[in-house]
């Protein structure tokens, strides 16, 4: 007999009048690792929020640990003891691991904090999962994997029966993911349940007992382990895989040009030491950061936030200041939120890409109209009459990438471009990046998870704290152990 830990029964949830979930049914059993693939992510955030907080429902009921905690008939607005771990840390920075796990726990009653006692209490948990993180380490010094482990331990110690892991693959690299799966299985064996939300079916197939396909606020299909490999489940990712297979063939025919457009020489940052890399004209280089802090160091150099301790950054062979260099464009993570300026028209948003090349663009109506005419083909006429706030995610992605197109840089750096994008948007982002490559720009993808980025790559470099750990040319991609269905094309 299986025991239900969490259940949503026919839940319909509206947020500001917009339907986020409709007739949503889902049950998670005790000791189970349940997977979820967001095919269309609309409503996913609302779902995760509803799991934790009992907000007023339009219809349906929510049960947690056998008790009805929310219903359309009455809402208590209480909080469910469900832990959510995602790409952003929920730990309190500048506090130690043991403080985060024990002291900040609900019900911690000691007035005097005995650090040694807490360290002794933490030790068996660490031993249990075979991970060694110093109890007195400050959490802002931890690697992404350690941070996730600490958050997981915090949830376990707090007695949360259900733990949600949302897109963890975007911050943890492949080998660490394997270790995380072992920890999840360990706790699942002890009766804890997990909901593992990921866009990559390959990840889910590796760790989950069942998978639910989430689409626009509904569950389209729930499949067991045996069914996961069936055509029904695979068909959702098949379109993406087909497209990648087709385009990979096309890109492999493209010639190589060995003129360096971007070079970072002997860069040292907070944790990174002596990092040197070159990016060649028209190539797509994937930089996998084996550590999140390394990514932060590289980003601070590229954004020009902080001067590196050592080394220099050159574009086209000349040292540059990133903030004022138009030959270098950066597309930050989650660009639909961070790179679209509210309160400006779509045309003005677009013309920002031109402002460095044409200083008087803001007053030049003729030029702006000409830009509008030219880019209406890509963006569509509607975008220019729609307020920025009302644009959909797809249009926002288009706007950001088209702006870069207008800037005509020599090299474009995309920071975790696929993070947070659902299946439909991933296809779209992929096409936009391919468009940049077709126009002769070099594209650098900074990422942690390789699954999507590798399909475009000409070269891969893996970077650790001590600089480049491994460099792999396209011809040798076949030797990489990446769980992606189209990897066989490289073999």
């Amino acid at each position, binding site marked *: 007999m*299986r025991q239900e830990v969490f259940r949503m029964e026919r839940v319909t949830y509206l947020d500001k009048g917009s339907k986020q979930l409709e*007739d949503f049914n889902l049950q998670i059993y005790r000791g189970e690792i349940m997977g979820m693939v967001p095919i269309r992510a609309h409503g996913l955030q609302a779902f995760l929020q509803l799991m934790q907080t009992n907000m007023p429902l339009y219809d349906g009921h929510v049960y947690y640990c*056998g008790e009805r905690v929310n219903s*359309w008939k009455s809402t208590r607005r209480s909080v469910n003891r469900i832990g959510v771990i995602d790409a952003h840390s929920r730990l309190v920075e500048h506090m130690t691991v043991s403080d985060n796990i024990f002291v900040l726990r609900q019900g911690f009653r000691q007035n005097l904090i005995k650090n040694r006692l807490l360290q002794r209490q933490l030790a068996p948990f660490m031993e249990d999962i075979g991970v060694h993180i110093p109890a007195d380490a400050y959490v802002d010094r931890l690697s992404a994997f350690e941070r996730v482990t600490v958050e997981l331990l915090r949830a376990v110690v707090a007695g949360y029966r259900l733990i949600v892991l949302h897109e963890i693959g975007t911050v943890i690299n492949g080998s660490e993911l394997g270790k995380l799966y072992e920890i999840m299985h360990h706790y699942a064996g002890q009766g804890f349940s997990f909901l593992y939300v990921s866009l990559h079916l390959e990840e889910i197939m590796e760790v989950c007992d069942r998978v639910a396909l989430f689409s626009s606020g509904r569950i389209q299909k729930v499949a067991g382990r045996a069914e996961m490999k069936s055509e029904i489940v695979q068909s959702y990712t098949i379109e993406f895989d087909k497209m990648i297979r087709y385009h990979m063939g096309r890109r492999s025919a493209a010639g190589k040009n060995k003129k360096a457009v971007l070079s970072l020489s002997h860069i040292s940052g907070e944790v990174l030491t002596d990092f040197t890399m070159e990016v060649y004209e028209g190539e797509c280089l994937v930089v996998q950061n084996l550590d999140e802090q390394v990514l932060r160091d590289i980003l601070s150099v590229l954004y020009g936030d902080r001067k590196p301790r050592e080394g220099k950054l050159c574009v086209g062979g000349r040292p540059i200041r990133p903030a004022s260099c138009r030959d270098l464009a950066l597309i930050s993570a989650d660009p639909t939120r961070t790179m679209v300026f509210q309160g400006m028209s779509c045309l003005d948003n677009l013309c920002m890409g031109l402002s460095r090349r044409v200083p008087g663009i803001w007053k030049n109506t003729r030029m702006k109209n000409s830009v509008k005419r030219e880019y209406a083909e890509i963006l569509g006429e509607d975008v220019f009459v729609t307020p920025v706030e009302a644009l959909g995610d797809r249009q926002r992605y288009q706007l950001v990438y088209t702006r870069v197109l207008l800037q005509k840089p020599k090299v474009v750096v995309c920071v975790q471009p696929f993070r947070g994008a659902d299946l439909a948007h991933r296809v779209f982002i992929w096409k936009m990046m391919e468009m940049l490559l077709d126009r002769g720009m070099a594209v650098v993808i900074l990422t942690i998870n390789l699954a999507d980025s590798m399909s475009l790559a000409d070269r891969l470099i893996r970077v650790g704290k001590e600089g480049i750990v491994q460099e792999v040319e396209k011809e040798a991609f076949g030797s990489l152990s990446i769980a992606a269905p189209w990897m066989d094309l490289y073999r």
Partner: protein
Amino acid sequence: MREEYRLKYISNRIFLIAVIIFLYFAEEAVRNVLLELRGEETMFRACIHVLIALLYFLVVWFGVVLPYRRSELLVRRFLEGYLTESRDFAEVFQSPSMKRQMDEIEKILRSPKMIDLNKRQAQYLALQNQINPHFLYNTLESIRGEALIAGLSGVADMTEALAKFFRYTITNVENLVTVQDELDNCETYFLIQKYRFGERLQLHVDYDSEDWEDIMGCRIPKLTLQPILENSIIHGTELKVDTGNLRIQFERTQDRLLIRISDDGVGMDEETLAKLNRKLGRDGNELIHGEERKGGIALANVNSRIHLLFGEEYGLHVYSVPQKGTDVEVTIPFQMD
């Protein structure tokens, strides 16, 4: 002015009076505080006025406004077709007569008559061309006898299965039967369909062997599984060229029985699926407004009966992927004899 804000409704008049009284108390409180600041009034008096205004607000808000809003919500949902129960209104009845009125409505909705009406419809659905059962049994027995004499064992078996199916559908009159009975009837029905489809149709039954006995003894409404199975064949696998696979999966939790009937047929598009699930969620529409059922009759009927017998937390939910198949999940409280 929007209809719901018009003063012709007593609730709006009461609300208006409450707001006027609150404004009076608030004005008194503010005046006294100002007078206190100017030294023309004592601190104690000013505090009392502020407290009265606050207390009045809290009492009206939590004692009248919120319960009234909840009561309004429940009535609105009832009119939308959701089945509310009298006990949902327990803390928010506006008057004793309203409470009695709700009790009466519930009595009518959950009366044996209503349940019987739904059951009859289920039988009718199962036997679209219903004829006199005794005449039917006799005829089928005769055909079987003739077939056996002629050495046509296939025809004899088929006739026997048909007779068995009709007997179960028509003669057993109780509301609840065991899962075992329902599964037997499904297998009989499937056997009949096999004569038509041959090897093109396959049925698989999945269960956890540890719970098998418990599951088979669980009581569920009669004719729950067969109409769904029939639906899966007619709307799913029949339209498919290759072999159609039907799967019945049983799962038991601490308090519920989950039955999933899946097919790998043609499935349905998202819009149709959303409409169907919406309809299954609001079957009260039909009971309250007498709305006609258009499409998905069998599923709606099974769902209505489960709602009437066990409450709206149980029932049917449909998952579907176009061109890949449909799953119908039946949720029933776990109860044995």
